[in-house]
């Protein structure tokens, strides 16, 4: 998995590509913990993410919980595979997806 960061003021966009699975989820978790403290909007750009497992969902859920306290989080451009996993787990209903 590759993570690209783009910070504009209070808004942080992380563009994820590749696979967010049990081996790569910790990397995203670390990245988030390093950068989520002084932002109000977190955007996860997922167009290039073609795989997500529950390990990745857990990290995203943690991020959502964190961001709700200080602003908001949005997910963008889910690929078909990823969207389907969001739907089957009910994540699609609790996340802001654009």
């Amino acid at each position, binding site marked *: 998995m590759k993570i690209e960061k783009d910070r504009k003021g209070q808004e942080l966009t992380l563009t994820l590509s590749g696979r967010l699975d*049990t081996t790569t989820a910790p990397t995203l978790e670390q990245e988030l913990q390093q950068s989520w403290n002084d932002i109000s909007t977190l955007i996860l750009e997922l167009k290039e993410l073609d*795989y997500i*497992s529950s390990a990745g969902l857990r990290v995203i859920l943690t991020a959502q919980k964190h961001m709700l306290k200080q602003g908001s989080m949005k997910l963008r451009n889910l690929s078909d595979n990823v969207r389907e996993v969001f739907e089957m787990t009910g994540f699609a209903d609790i996340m802001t997806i654009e």
Partner: protein
Amino acid sequence: MITVRHLSKKFGETCVLKDVNAEINKGEVISIIGPSGTGKSTFLRCLNLLERPSSGEILINGVSLLSPETDIHLLRRKMGMVFQSFNLFSHLMVVENLMLGPVQLLKLSRQEAYDRSMKLLETVGLTARAYAFPGELSGGQKQRVAIARALAMEPEIILFDEPTSALDPTMVSEVLAVIRKLKEQGLTMMIVTHEMDFARDVSTRIFYMDEGIIFEDGPPEQIFEHPKREKTRAFIHKISLFRFTAESKTLDIYRFNAELEDFCIRHLLNRKQIHNLQLLCEEVLVNLLFPLTEKVELSIGCTDDNRETEITFEYAGQTGNPLENPKPDQELSCKIVQHLAPECNFSTEAGSSRLRFVLKDNNSKVSS
């Protein structure tokens, strides 16, 4: 009626039949299925001594086929044989082909042999072709003649070796219909066949042959619906298998995914199927099973039309069903798994546990 004990057959160094044991009763219809080259034909040929067994015993109504005192010709006459290639005499008319055995071996008069032959031609629906030569018949008709010829010897059992394999597909059913009719008349038959649907509905019992033995023996319902052994299952489902040993301490998900993808591509599974397989395996292994065990044997098989993929996880130790009563951190995994594979089966016996899923894909095309 026929008892086979510890039958073995070697060709030079190669041991084709290792230890075949069977009991065939009057009125039974036994289909023999199994991969090519496992010795199905050799087994039939040993039964009527077209091949001499290397060791073992064959008893016919209590009389040993292999003992020197036995009148082999008499015993052999009790067994008709129908081959893939029809082996008719091309210079003789159909009815003459049928009369030959009864006249020469059973010493019937020509009239008796003729009457019997015409009656049998009626049974196989070929009265009208009695005076034709084999060359004028279709493949299906030739095979029906070959069956009538076997019947003309009034055998107690008929052995069929792939009776429809050489036929044009349009002619298979007429031959199978004749065999069905013979079953209704109570004839004992053993049939080596690749026609699974036929084997399933005509047989009283199925022998699945593999590894030089009758690997599994049971009623069609068992063999086709609940085979007891993995190899039988794999054969029935025409499954090609992918195997992987996953250990919690050393599992390399990249390698696993790469190998799985390789297998899937070779078997023409589509991207969606590959994705779903990888997701299912990751969730089950990492989140549901590794908390219970360190080592899991995984096997994945796909049917030849690629519509169904079956995934089996096996591990030592008897546990409860990992999908029941999940811990809070396993709920997500359970949801994913149950969504991907609504069909799931858990069993535990003899010190090990097994979790099996079927992934269905209704979009995949039959690969051509």
